[in-house]
């Protein structure tokens, strides 16, 4: 049994299902990457794992307990952290306050964690007093990831964390993600910078029209010519 298991999830926004028996899993200290064409249901699958989408079938369990019926809020407390694809910062609050909000459920002193975030994304230290809404696209993305890290989650879910960030920051992000994973946190992320992402992934999922098309280790998927051609841009 893996740390997170999302088994045969089926569901959608309205009458029609977007997900069809979609299965995902990731263990502590592992990185799982979901890739696939636009509109394949990757974000939807993430939302389903996080309890933001009603499932018609399938179940989600975390650390052996079934959490299928928990609300997103309860899942946060159960140790899940999530960075959505869009609208992922508090635009009217300063960078620092954004991070503080990430630590909302924590009662201990979170200043160390904040320091770590700042050293990972130095630009944020400079901009700590500026409202996040005034940041550039890439800067916001850094705030968003920083906010999720503040929770000290045991499962971190990232929906395209590197969209719009510069190569150098992307590398650092991936580095950090590796580090985070190394501390025993499970990481589930969606990526379009798929080659870089799969390169660091322990598990890779290719999702097409809400179904698992390929599932393998990151390396294996990268090596698969069909996957490369159809989904990774050659």
């Amino acid at each position, binding site marked *: 049994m893996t740390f997170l298991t999302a088994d045969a999830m089926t569901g959608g*926004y309205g009458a029609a299902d977007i997900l069809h028996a979609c299965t995902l899993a990731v263990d502590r200290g592992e990185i799982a990457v979901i890739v*696939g*064409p*636009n*509109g*394949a249901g*990757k*974000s939807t699958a993430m939302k389903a794992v996080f309890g933001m989408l009603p499932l018609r079938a399938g179940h989600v369990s975390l650390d052996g307990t079934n959490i299928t019926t928990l609300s997103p809020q309860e899942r946060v407390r159960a140790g899940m952290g999530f960075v959505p*694809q*869009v609208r992922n910062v508090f635009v009217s609050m300063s960078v620092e306050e954004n991070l503080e909000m990430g630590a909302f459920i924590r009662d201990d002193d979170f200043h160390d964690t904040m320091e*770590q975030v700042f*050293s*990972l994304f*130095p*630009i944020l230290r400079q901009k700590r007093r*500026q409202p996040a809404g*005034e*940041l*550039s*696209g*890439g*800067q916001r*993305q*850094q705030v968003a990831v920083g906010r999720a890290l503040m929770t000290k989650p045991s499962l971190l879910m990232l929906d*395209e964390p590197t*969209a*719009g*960030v*510069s*190569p*150098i*920051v*992307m*590398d*650092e992000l*991936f*580095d*950090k993600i*590796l*580090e985070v994973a*190394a501390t025993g946190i499970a990481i589930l992320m969606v990526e*379009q*910078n*798929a*080659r*870089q992402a799969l*390169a*660091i992934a322990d598990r890779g999922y290719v999702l097409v029209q809400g179904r698992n098309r390929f599932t393998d280790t990151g390396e294996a998927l990268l090596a698969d010519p069909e996957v490369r*051609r*159809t*989904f*990774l*841009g*050659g």
Partner: protein
Amino acid sequence: MIRVEDLHLHFGGIRAVDGASVNIAKGSITGLIGPNGAGKSTLFNVIAGLYRPTSGKVWLDGEDVTGLSPHALFHKGLLRTFQIAHEFASLTVRENLMMVPAEQPGEVLWDAWFKPGRVRAREAEVRARADEVIDFLEIPHVADELAGNLSGGQKKLLELGRTMMVDAKIVFLDEVGAGVNRTLLNTIGDAILRLNRERGYTFCMVEHDMDFIGRLCDPVIVMAEGKVLTVGHPAEVMKNEAVIEAYLGRGLKNRKASAMGPA
């Protein structure tokens, strides 16, 4: 084609663009890269008329267009996409595209009321064009979906699609690639090349995917801290130490690193 001269835009104390001078040659595909917060989007927004510059000038085809409104620039052939998709959420994908072309008689109330024939004829043309674009973007299955319900990447495609609805002189693309599947991005790249060669569109694009930039763009302009750092052929630029230091980086440290990177 576009000439920007010593442009400044300051938000209070923040110098988002701080004396940038840029030339975009007719018929080129110019790349604009730079670290996050370098001022690329802001520069775009100034050129596209969304912000008035604090100082400096913008020329389009030798004409001073500084401070013209976006819709006026559109009619001069300048189109743009938004980094954060700006779809019309309560219109369908097809309608999103159909509303783009200018000079639709149906958009004039008088004609809409009293000249149904003319309106219908033009609608048919516009619709045909929209369907072409939809096919091109490989999204026919969502043609009648409300744009608000699209996935993140589909919205970006729609952004690009809108620029294809009219014959533009110059198109500004703000990170069309972010969030778009790489295979599809290649197709988009082909489309851009085709539009550039066959229709003579000039492109200027912000992008963080260096493969994409490398494949399409020449020259590449590198911005940092509101200024132009360097301009050149992508291969040259990518070798430039300053660019590597500020922007490109040197790849992942290692696969299972445990030490923090340099702050």
